[in-house]
């Protein structure tokens, strides 16, 4: 069984938040590019959990080949981390990041998956922590003609059937269906594993397969973004801090009233 996990490199969300809180996050003159030289770049947290989901299937005895694929430049560190976690194959697709919207991303990933003869299971994080759109997995499903199961927290697979535990606001929902399928993984899956030193050493030697987006047989139209980022703004952070005074009972009562008045509860 072939599992393809799509991973994205994002700006460290914690660092970005800190920059915002400290008023240090700046946007360039074009009004849309963040000045973020000092912010570390990491694997998108949900995507790391998607790899973990694939590894959990392998741990459960599913005989599978796990491929981690990412789009961008200089993805060595990211992909080696995927290899250390347990991906059998790591693939870097070179494309111009400025032209990547979710349509183009999905076109490239779908074309790549087709180029390797398809996949039984495509796993993605539920969304990327930078743009938070969560649209790419659904589009991949559409391009590949596969069903899409969003927000999974557990997977079980046997032969050609997939059983997915989905997270909903009201509790779990379990769905079942035939593979191939696209599944998006939610954070409820749990913490990804910490790679062993042996795996990390083996990963150092693993060379990524490098592919150019242009070589995937996509038309110019397929590679042209349908949405374009025009402007980004740094949110203004306002902190209102009010101290309630009185006995514990009083404070609790006042707090309750205030929360009710704000329709918070």
């Amino acid at each position, binding site marked *: 069984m072939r599992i393809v996990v799509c991973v994205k490199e994002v700006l460290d969300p914690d660092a970005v938040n800190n920059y915002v809180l400290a008023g240090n996050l700046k946007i360039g003159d074009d009004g849309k590019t963040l000045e973020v030289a000092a912010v570390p770049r990491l694997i998108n947290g949900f995507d790391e959990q998607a790899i973990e989901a694939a590894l959990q299937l392998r741990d459960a005895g599913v005989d599978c080949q796990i491929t981690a694929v990412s789009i961008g430049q200089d993805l060595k560190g990211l992909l080696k981390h995927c290899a250390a976690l347990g991906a059998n194959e790591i693939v870097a697709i070179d494309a111009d990041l400025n032209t990547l919207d979710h349509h183009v991303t999905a076109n490239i990933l779908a074309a790549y998956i087709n180029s390797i003869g398809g996949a039984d299971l495509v796993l993605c994080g539920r969304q990327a922590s930078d743009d938070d759109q969560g649209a790419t997995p659904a589009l991949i499903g559409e391009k590949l003609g596969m069903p899409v199961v969003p927000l999974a927290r557990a997977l079980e697979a046997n032969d050609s059937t997939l059983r997915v535990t989905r997270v909903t606001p009201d509790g779990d929902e379990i769905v079942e269906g035939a593979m191939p399928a696209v599944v998006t993984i939610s954070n409820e899956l749990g913490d990804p594993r*910490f790679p062993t*030193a042996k795996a990390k*050493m083996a990963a150092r030697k693993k060379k990524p397969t490098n592919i150019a987006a242009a070589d995937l047989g996509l038309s110019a139209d397929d590679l042209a973004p349908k949405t374009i980022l025009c402007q980004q703004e740094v949110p203004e952070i306002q902190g209102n801090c009010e101290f309630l005074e009185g006995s514990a009972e009083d404070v609790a009562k006042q707090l309750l009233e205030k929360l009710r008045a704000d329709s918070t509860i």
Partner: protein
Amino acid sequence: MDTIPAYNYVILAVLLCAALYSLYLGLQKIWQGIEHGKPYFGEQITRDAIMAKFNRDTFIKRGLLLSRLLKRPASGVAHIIMYIGALLLIFGHATYMLSFIGVPVYEGWFGYLFMKLGRELGGLMLFCGLLFFLIRRLMPPERLTAGDKTRSTFLLGELLMLAIIIAGFTAESFRLGFEPNSNNAEFIGSTFGALLGNWLGEEGAIAGFKAMWWIHALMGCALIALISRGPLSHMLIGPANSALASKRPGINLAPINFDFDDEDDDDDDEDEEEEMTFGATKLSDLNQKNLIDASACLWCGRCHEACPAAQTGKELSPKKVMATCAEYLEQEKFDDASLIDLIGQEAVFNCTTCGACIEQCPVSNNPPEIIMEFRRNFVMDQSEMPETMAAANRNLESREHPFVGTGSNPEDWREGLDVPFFESGETEYLLWIGCSVTFEERAQDIARAMVKILDRAGVSYGILEEARCTGDPAKMMGNEMQFVEIAEANIEDFEEMGVQKVITLCAHCFNSFDRYYPELGAKWETIPHSVLIDQLIKQDKLRLVKNSHQSITFHDPCYLARHNDIVDETRSAISAVGELIEMPRNKKDSFCCGAGGGNYWGGQGGTARVSDVRVQEAFYTGAEKIATSCSFCLLMLTASATKHTEERTVFDIAELVVEAMPEE
């Protein structure tokens, strides 16, 4: 002396040789066990290899003068009494042999002092010491039973020794019963001898003497034969282990080589990787010195009493770790990987690597070096560690610092300050900020204070443009691989920048740079900020106004005091700003803050916090302020102190020095 015909001595000499051979065989068996460990003396054990590890200082102090034992006065004195007693007896018995070739050893002052009085007192001392230990065996202090491990076979050896001494005195009494001696050197024998002589008459006394002489001699041979076959072996292995103690105090972790030549044949490489394990799961993964430690361990529990984890009710007891290894060694379970599980993950991660146990051990054992090998295995081989430590490790990998969800940016600490960057060839010192000072708000004050001090003293210094970590948290959490990656990157960049002197603000940064970086090729010199401050004060580059009414107690960071012998410089700096009041546990016997070994990010809760205990101890001194000279200690103690008072009571040395700097 002619009462015992010569052939008796011949038989005894044969028996003695047999006993000595048994002693040798016993030691050989112990060594055969130790040999299962990884080579410690190099591939071949040569005289040079052993001499290279020989530590004369610790051998004399701890091995021959029993200095460590005296840290516990009662058992220390009992040991010293027995030790001197035994030396007198061995000397007396050995010298007696000279009489066979006609040397009159019993004559004159020598005979009086050594052969009679010396042996009499030696026997008495041994008797008193043994009585102390036997009584204590009946009412053991907690440390002897702590960790559910009690060494039971001591009793046999002690009873045998007691019987030998009683037999010796009885034989002497019989002899003096028929051969009364006018001088009072053999006062015990004379007293009982007079009674026995009267009671049994000369012939009875002679028969009694012959019988007791043999009983005493046979039991003596039995003791010698048994020394290396039970806990009494500590008489030999203890001093031997002290002779092999690391020359550098504290924890010295062996480096691991992660570099494998890429050009190697791929197949070979894969084989190598298949067998590759990191750290230890079983005895044969530990090195020979670790196993000598386990052999030397007497389960006395001094380490347990000093251990901050054990003393706050956590799973770890260094004594239990050592005793468990010793049991496996005894049972020849060299390749039994159940050892790591028996010791347990929780215990392994409880260790704060403070080194208090190392400082207490009378036989120079180093439990953390063993614990860390198990930790390395959990982290690097099994990917198992407490969740909070896993998060810190993950952060180290992705962000190159261990702080999860920090509220600070790398440049926050120097906001509004004009701090120079290090310039190649221009700047003398690199002021290394380190992770905790960069990312933890309270610790940022240390860097701000240090910058003021360096400016005032006119020191040429500069900082790095970006925030960095030495990798100590990774290393001490068992993630050696991450440490090596971080360290190699730092070394490469420092070399490119031409860094020759580095000031550290954190004891862990100092220890990393000074102890472990040189192994990876670093050539610069590192100085802890507290030591530099002391130098600047002594060189009169820093004028301070001492406030004699301000009482300050000083918490020694483990990684400065115990691990690196830095105790005087910090005190001298404190004394320049106020009155130093010592806590009961100070200097190299200090009590940890609880942060080391990655435990700043550890802690499952449910037990007392190490830092709470330490802050309580500091408060009891009545001092107004608690000073320290490590950012992690500062953060831990501050967190505990704020439970008692909202006022700021914990300070770094640099902060106190800035307060004492007169306005310009």
